[in-house]
């Protein structure tokens, strides 16, 4: 018991350490100068060190306020080359003087993109302003550029509306996580494998959709379906080629987990090898306007994503509850040895689980690609959130994975409204993961050998 108290104290201590960040996020307002909290004089005038190599120095000013610098806005720089898509080289956030410094690989043409979401509350770009600025760096070293924007005041959005917007995107995100979590949970349940390459299965779905869409030229919807089918095939193939032989050899779970780390590393780099490190988008449904549905507004694709996820999850649950296959899967996950001795073809069941699990995960990737963009790291970045979702609800249980993922999705999106720094909104979910492990380990634990 003392340990638990100590832990709680330590966690509280840790959260207190984070407190300045939270407090600071709340005080952000257009009039304040937020990069340096007042009261720390050592920070005033402290300039960022300049990079040694080439860089672009962008000064962001507001021409509607007499050229006042705009702090705290995130700028992303992408290199533009003839005949290929822009490739991100870096990002930075403007400081007090509205200056952001981004290192670049050398002379060339770059596009600076402004992240509208990071503009101060109550301000938005006016119609005369673009979010992009093209810069040509001709010489090495520093390239200075001014980025004047025009802003207009908007009515402060009421909290309830912000909340419902965040809630909606949380539900959408949660459903996407849930699809992947369902896949992870199924595979864990039947094989005991903690699959660290699961994130790559998400990326694979997205990437396949991109290849079918941009490479072969199929419409996005057809490409998406094809990607899910191909994912399912990949699930079957990787079980047959990798995991089934390992199971037959009697490889331990920890060893398999490390193999999955190697597999993930391998896939990640193969993905990057194939599509490069920039973000890509599909050919359709990229920028859709939103429609109002009562208090919430959603783009058509967002609505479609929510509906598709919900339908898929429902069907999967029905399949698992009602059909022979589902019962077999649950039997194997309960007790593989007993299932085998009662005449069940355990290997076939596991193979089916891999197919289903990878297909669900691939679908999650496809929908993510439609929702935003494709990047070789997208799945890996999501992996911990998927783990968190699965762990939160209780591993191995379908409902647990769904519930946990929804909680994680909503926490990530709604958290910033309650002071979680928005640039690291995933942190909240991860902290919750650790807290759950602390207070309810039985909710997340699978089976242990019996003592004695």
């Amino acid at each position, binding site marked *: 018991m003392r340990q638990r108290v100590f832990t709680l104290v330590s966690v509280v201590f840790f959260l207190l350490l984070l407190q300045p960040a939270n407090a600071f996020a709340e005080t952000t307002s257009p009039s304040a100068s937020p990069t340096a909290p007042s009261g720390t004089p050592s920070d005033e005038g402290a300039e960022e060190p300049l990079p040694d190599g080439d860089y672009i120095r962008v000064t962001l000013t507001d021409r509607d306020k007499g050229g006042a610098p705009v702090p705290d806005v995130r700028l992303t720089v992408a290199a533009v080359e003839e005949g290929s898509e822009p490739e991100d080289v870096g990002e930075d956030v403007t400081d007090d003087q509205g200056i952001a410094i981004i290192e670049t690989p050398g002379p060339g043409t770059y596009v600076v993109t402004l992240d509208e979401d990071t503009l101060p509350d109550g301000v938005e770009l006016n119609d005369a302003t673009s979010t992009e600025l093209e810069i040509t760096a001709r010489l090495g070293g520093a390239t200075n550029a001014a980025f004047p924007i025009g802003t207009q005041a908007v009515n402060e959005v009421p909290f309830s509306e912000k909340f419902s917007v965040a809630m909606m995107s949380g539900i959408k995100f949660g459903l996407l996580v849930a699809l992947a979590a369902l896949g992870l949970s199924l595979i864990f349940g039947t094989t005991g494998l903690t699959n660290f390459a699961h994130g790559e299965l998400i990326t694979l779905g997205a990437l396949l959709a991109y290849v079918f869409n941009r490479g072969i030229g199929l419409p996005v919807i057809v490409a998406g379906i094809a990607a899910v089918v191909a994912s399912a095939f990949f699930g079957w193939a990787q079980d047959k080629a990798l995991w089934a032989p390992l199971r037959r050899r009697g490889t331990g779970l920890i060893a398999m987990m490390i193999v999955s780390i190697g597999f993930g590393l391998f896939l990640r780099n193969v993905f990057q090898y194939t599509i490069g490190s920039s973000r890509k988008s599909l050919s359709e449904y990229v920028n859709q306007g939103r429609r109002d549905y009562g208090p919430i507004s959603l783009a058509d694709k967002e609505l479609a994503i929510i509906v598709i996820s919900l339908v898929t999850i429902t069907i999967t649950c029905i399949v698992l509850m009602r059909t022979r296959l589902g019962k077999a899967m649950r039997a194997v996950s309960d007790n593989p040895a007993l299932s085998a001795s009662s005449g069940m073809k355990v290997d076939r069941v596991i193979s089916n689980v891999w197919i289903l699990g990878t297909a669900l995960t691939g679908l999650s990737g496809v929908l993510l690609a439609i929702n935003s963009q494709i990047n070789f790291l997208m799945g890996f970045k999501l992996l911990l959130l998927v783990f968190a979702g699965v762990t939160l609800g209780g591993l191995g249980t379908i409902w647990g994975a769904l519930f946990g993922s929804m909680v994680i999705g909503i926490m990530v999106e709604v958290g910033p409204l309650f002071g979680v*720094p928005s640039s690291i909104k995933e942190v909240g979910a991860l902290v919750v993961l650790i807290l759950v492990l602390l207070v309810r380990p039985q909710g997340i634990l699978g089976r242990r050998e019996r003592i004695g």
Partner: protein
Amino acid sequence: MNTTEKSPATEEPKAAPTQARRTPPEVVTSIVLGILGITLALGFTSPFAIIKGRQAVAKIDEDPARYDGRPLAMVGQVLGIVGTVWLVAWLVLSFTVGFAGIDMFDVLRTALNQALGPNAIVYALAAIGLNVHFGYTGLLNFGQAGFMAVGAYGLAVTVVTWDQPFVLGILVALLAPVLLALVLGVPTLRLRADYLAIATIATAEILRLVFGAVETKSVFGGSNGLNNYAGTYQDANIFRTWDVFNPGGALGFDRLDLWIMSFSKRDLWSMVIGWLLVALCCLVVWALMRSPWGRLLRAIREDEDAVRSLGKNVFAYKMQALVLGGLFGGLAGLYLALKQASVVPSDYSTNMTFLAFVALLIGGAARVAGPVIGAMILWFLISGMREFFEQATAGADPVMPTWLMDNTQASLIRFVAVGLGLMLLMIFRPQGIFGDRREIAIDGR
């Protein structure tokens, strides 16, 4: 009711000789030839190193009672194989593609420099920590990058943000990973191995995100990180101010060039400090692991309940192991921060932990020198591969057809290979190069 099952009565005791065993001379020959092969002899002695190594192993296996030194013979063989592969590649490429673009000598030099240089040291230190966690105690810590990050930021934040003296920074850097281990250990050490992995990986990611966040920029420097704290360390560089032949004067060279190796004075200084640190850590691990304390850790790795039933406080020992390994991790971070004179959050990603694991598994878990050798081999391979493919894709008319690989893709091949290598290693030789299969932690469970 009688549950007797037949157990083979293998009561016949095996020969248990205890007389002094000696190392066959072939072992030494093999190692010497192997080392020559990958350095001065450009691979030509390597095939002989393999042959001698094989002879030595055969001799040892034939009469294990008389001979020992099997691991050394394996080293000789491995050196021989590396050198031979290099020799063959070098010869084949030299004669097939001519000398078009690829300078194998340069590739080898880069690989060797990296295998001995500061980068390998960082990974060696991190992997020594993981060896204490995973190799000896069975704790699956996937958050070593987090320990490294708090070590590095401990120094940088103390000196830059809080404007405190360098020495205090070092102290904070050593204290921070200990604190992290305590805070992390209490909730997570009760968990099963794979959940411990998830919890630690999550903690490391939380730390990286918080250190890199815009909102904490005033403390941690955001995504650009912190620098200007390593002056004291750089000023202490003996190669800058001191020369055996010319006391008081600066050393008479800019770089140390030893034909196959070349190091800047700055790297040379870091290497002296780094290898001393590695030696110190290995010494500590060696001394601890041969004690009853080390025996307890290995026992815990195998079966916690058995250890509990003998009246040992398993939790306390796991915590001690977590703290010790975390401290080594923090040291790795601190060393990284010193040698590159800047801390950047993206350095402390999960990949860092994974690569340190690869280093550990190459060398062999639960072996004192395993992580060190592993880190050197890892860096030899990945930097050699990088250099090779960079050269193969460089220039206007590269050796490698551009539809197959371009210059940006060249640097990825090595990680594709590392991923594959980790899988194969885990499947076919989980004990690594030096490990003893009967004694490793990884099977079972």
